[in-house]
C-alpha cells in the first residue's frame, strides 16, 4: 500500500523540506494511530458491556446490596464493603453440594458429550460416505440452532409422566421399565447432562471433523499399508495429529460449562429436591435475581459470580500450563527451515 510520504520520493513534483517533514510526522502518527482507530469500536463495546459490568459485579460482591436496601445503601463507598459475602459462600451448609454438582455436571458432560461424543461423531462421519457424514453432522447441529426454550420444552415433553411423556409411552412402557413417573423428577441428572451434551457435542464435532479431514491422506494410507487396524490408525495417527483441537475443545468447553446454567434453569431450576441439580452459575443467578418474595441479593449473588470467574481463570491457567499450549501454537519447526 502506498503512503503519502512515498509519493514525493518517487519523482513526483517534490515538496519543500518543511512540508516533507510535516508529511513524515503525519504519516508516522497515522501509522501509529490507525490500529487504535480500528480497535476503538471493539474497545468501546468491550468496555461498556464487559469491563464496566465486571468491575461493578466485583465491587457489588463486597456489598450487602439487596432488594430491601436498594436506593438506600451507598454501595459504591468503600466503607460499606466487606468480605462477608465470601465468608457466607464458603460457610454455606449447601456449598459442598453445589460444588460437587458443578464438578459432576462439567466432568460428565465434557467426558461423555462435549469431547467424547464429539470425537466419536467426528471419527465416524469422516470414515463413512462423505455426503452421509455431512448429513449426519448437520442433524447433530439441530439442538444448537433450536431456540433454547423450545428445545427444553421438547425435552420436558419427552420426559413427561405416562401417558403424555413420549419416552414413557413408547420406550419404557412397552419394555415394562418404571411406572410412568415424571422422569425429570426421578432421573434429573441424566436429563441435565443429555440436554447440555446434545448441544455441546456439535462444537467439538465440527472442529474435530475439519481437523481429521485436514490430515494428509498419505499418513492413513501409509498406516494401512503397514497393516494397522482402523483403531490403531485412530490411536497412533489421527489422535496425535488432532491434539491441538482436542485440548482447545476441552479447555473451552470446560469454561463454557462452568458458566452455563440456562438449560438447567429451564429444565429443573436446580431441583427437583433441594439443590439437587443446582450448579454454581445457577446459584449466582438464583441469589442475585430470583426469589419468591422478591428478596434478591445482588451483592451476595455477585460474590458467587466473582468466585466462579476466579475459578475459571485458575482452571484456564492450569490447562495452559499442563497441556503446554505455548508449544502447541508455535509454528511448525519444519516451516522455519
Amino acid at each position, binding site marked *: 500500500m502506498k503512503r503519502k510520504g512515498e509519493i514525493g520520493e518517487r519523482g513526483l513534483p517534490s515538496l519543500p523540506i518543511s512540508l516533507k517533514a510535516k508529511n513524515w510526522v503525519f504519516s508516522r502518527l497515522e501509522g501509529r494511530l490507525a490500529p487504535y482507530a480500528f480497535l476503538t469500536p471493539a474497545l468501546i463495546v468491550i468496555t461498556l458491556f464487559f469491563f464496566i459490568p465486571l468491575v461493578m459485579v466485583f465491587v457489588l460482591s463486597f456489598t450487602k446490596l439487596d*432488594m430491601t436496601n436498594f436506593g438506600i445503601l451507598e454501595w459504591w463507598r468503600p466503607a460499606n464493603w466487606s468480605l462477608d459475602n465470601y465468608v457466607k459462600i464458603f460457610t454455606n451448609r449447601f456449598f459442598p453440594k453445589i460444588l460437587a454438582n458443578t464438578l459432576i455436571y462439567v466432568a460428565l458432560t465434557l467426558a461423555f458429550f462435549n469431547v467424547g461424543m464429539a470425537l466419536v461423531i467426528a471419527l465416524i462421519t469422516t470414515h463413512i460416505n462423505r455426503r452421509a457424514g455431512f448429513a449426519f453432522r448437520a442433524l447433530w447441529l439441530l439442538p444448537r440452532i433450536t431456540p433454547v426454550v423450545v428445545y427444553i420444552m421438547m425435552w420436558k415433553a419427552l420426559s413427561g409422566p405416562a401417558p403424555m411423556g413420549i419416552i414413557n409411552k413408547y420406550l419404557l412402557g412397552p419394555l415394562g421399565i418404571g411406572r410412568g413417573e415424571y422422569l425429570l423428577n426421578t432421573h434429573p441428572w441424566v436429563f441435565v447432562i443429555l440436554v447440555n451434551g446434545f448441544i455441546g457435542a456439535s462444537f467439538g464435532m465440527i472442529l474435530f471433523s475439519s481437523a481429521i479431514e485436514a490430515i494428509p491422506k498419505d499418513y492413513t494410507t501409509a498406516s494401512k499399508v503397514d497393516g494397522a487396524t482402523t483403531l490403531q490408525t485412530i490411536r497412533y495417527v489421527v489422535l496425535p495429529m488432532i491434539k491441538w483441537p482436542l485440548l482447545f475443545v476441552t479447555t473451552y468447553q470446560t469454561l463454557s460449562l462452568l458458566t452455563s446454567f440456562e438449560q438447567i434453569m429451564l429444565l*429443573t431450576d436446580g431441583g427437583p*429436591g433441594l439443590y439437587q441439580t443446582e450448579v454454581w452459575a445457577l446459584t449466582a443467578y438464583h441469589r442475585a435475581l430470583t426469589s*419468591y418474595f422478591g428478596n434478591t441479593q445482588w451483592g451476595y449473588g455477585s460474590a458467587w459470580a466473582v468466585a466462579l470467574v476466579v475459578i475459571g481463570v485458575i482452571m484456564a491457567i492450569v490447562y495452559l500450563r499442563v497441556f503446554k499450549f505455548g508449544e502447541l501454537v508455535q509454528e511448525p519447526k519444519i516451516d522455519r527451515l
Partner: protein
Amino acid sequence: MKKLAMKSGIMVVVLAVSLFLVGGVVSYGQETETITFTVRTRAKPPMENWRGDNFLLAAEELNADLKTAGDPRRVEIELIQDNMDWGPYVSEFVLGYGAGEAPDIWLTGHEHIGAQAEAGRIIVLDEMLKEFPIFNLIIDGLWDSTTYKGKVWGIPQDAEARPLYFNKALLKKLGWSNTEIAVLPGKIEKGEFTLYDMLKTAKEAVDRGIVEPGNGFWTRPKNGPDFTAFYYAFGGETIDPATGKLVFDTAAGLRYYKFFYDAVQTYGSMGCLGLDWSGAWHPGVSGSKVLFWIGGTWQWAEWAEKFLKNLGGEAYMWKNFGFGLIPAAEKGGKPNSLTHPLAYLISSQSKYPDLALALVAKVSNYGPNTRHAIASTHLGILKGQTEYKFYKVSRLLSEALYMLDYTTFLPNNPYWGPYSTITYEALAAAVAGDFTPEEAVDFVVDGLQRELGDKVIIR
C-alpha cells in the same frame, strides 16, 4: 366601492368566526389535561385479567365524574399485565423506581409493603382514604394486611382461602362412604381430623397402591405462603406485636419440620417439591394422582379452565374434589387457612396520587371486584358482597367463605423475604432427607441470626 365594502364585511365575519373557533379549540386544550396512569398488575390469563382490565372501565367512569365536577383533568390508562414470577415482578418495580419510571398504581402481595414503605417507594394512604367512602365497605380484617407501622399503605384487591383439597374418588377406593367424605370438612373444622390423621390416610392409600409413593399428600412445589399456615398450625408465630420484629419459635419450628420429615420418611407423601407447576403439579392434582393437597381457591378456576375443561370443568370437579380447612395439629385444636391479599399500592413517583386513588376506588366497588372474584375464584373483599346478586352465583365462593373466619396472614415486614427463604430451605432439606427436624431448626436459627441479626427474635 359597494363590492369592496361587502368583501371587507365577509372577510371580517370569516376572520371573526375563525378566531372564535381557534380560540375555542385553544381554550378547550388549555382546560383539559389528559394524564396517563401506568397500572402494573400480575394476572394469570384469562381468569385474573380483571385485575387490570377493570381500570380501563374505571377510567371512563372517572372521566365522566371529572367532567361533571368541572375538573379539567382526564385520565387514560396504560396497562401492563402479565404473569411474571413474584421475584422478578418486585425487582421490576424497584429498578423501575430507581430509573424514575415506577408505575402509578402497582398491584402486589401485601407482604411487600414493609420493604417498599421503608424505602419510600409507596405513599401512606390514611388521610386520602377518607375522601372515598367506598373504602369503608372493605372488610375490616383485610386492612390489617395492608397496615405497616400503624399506617395504611395499600388497598386490598382480593383474598382467598388455601384449603386442603381431597380427591373423593380416591377416598372411595380406600373404602370411605359418601357420608364419611361429606362430613370430612366438618370434622376438620371441629379439630377431629388432624394433620397426622391426614398423613395416616395418605399412607394407607400408598400402601394399597391407590396412589403412587409420594402422592399421598402434596403441598405447592416451591416456596410460597402456604407453608407458613402449617407453621402457624403447630403454634408458630412470625411477628412480635410489641416490637414489630420477625419471630422464629424453635419449639413450634421443631414440630413443623418433624411433620414434613415424617410425611416423607414414614407416610409416603410430599413427592411434590421441585415439580414443574404446569408440567407436573397441576396435572398431578387435577389428574387424580394425589389424595390430599394444599392449594388455593383461585386454582379451582385454573383447573376447570385449563386442565379439566374436556372432562366437564367445574361439574367434574364438584363430583371428584372436596375441600376443607388445613387441619389442626392436634385433636381438638384449631384448623386454619391463610389469606394472601393482593393490594393496590400507589407509587411516590405518581404525580397525581388523588386520581390514582380515585381509580382504585372505582375498581374496588361491588361490580368490578365481583367480576374478578367470579372469574378467578378469589374471595371478595367487601362487606355484604356475599349478598350481591352476581357474587352468589359462584358455589365455590359461597362454600369457601367460612374459611375467612379461620384465616391467617403473612407478616408485613421488610425482612420477610430472607426469613421465608431460610425457613423454606430447611423444609426442603428435611423433605429431601438431608436434615433431621433438629438440624432444620439449627439451620434456621443460624441462618436467621446471620442474615438478619437483631431484626429477628428467636424464641
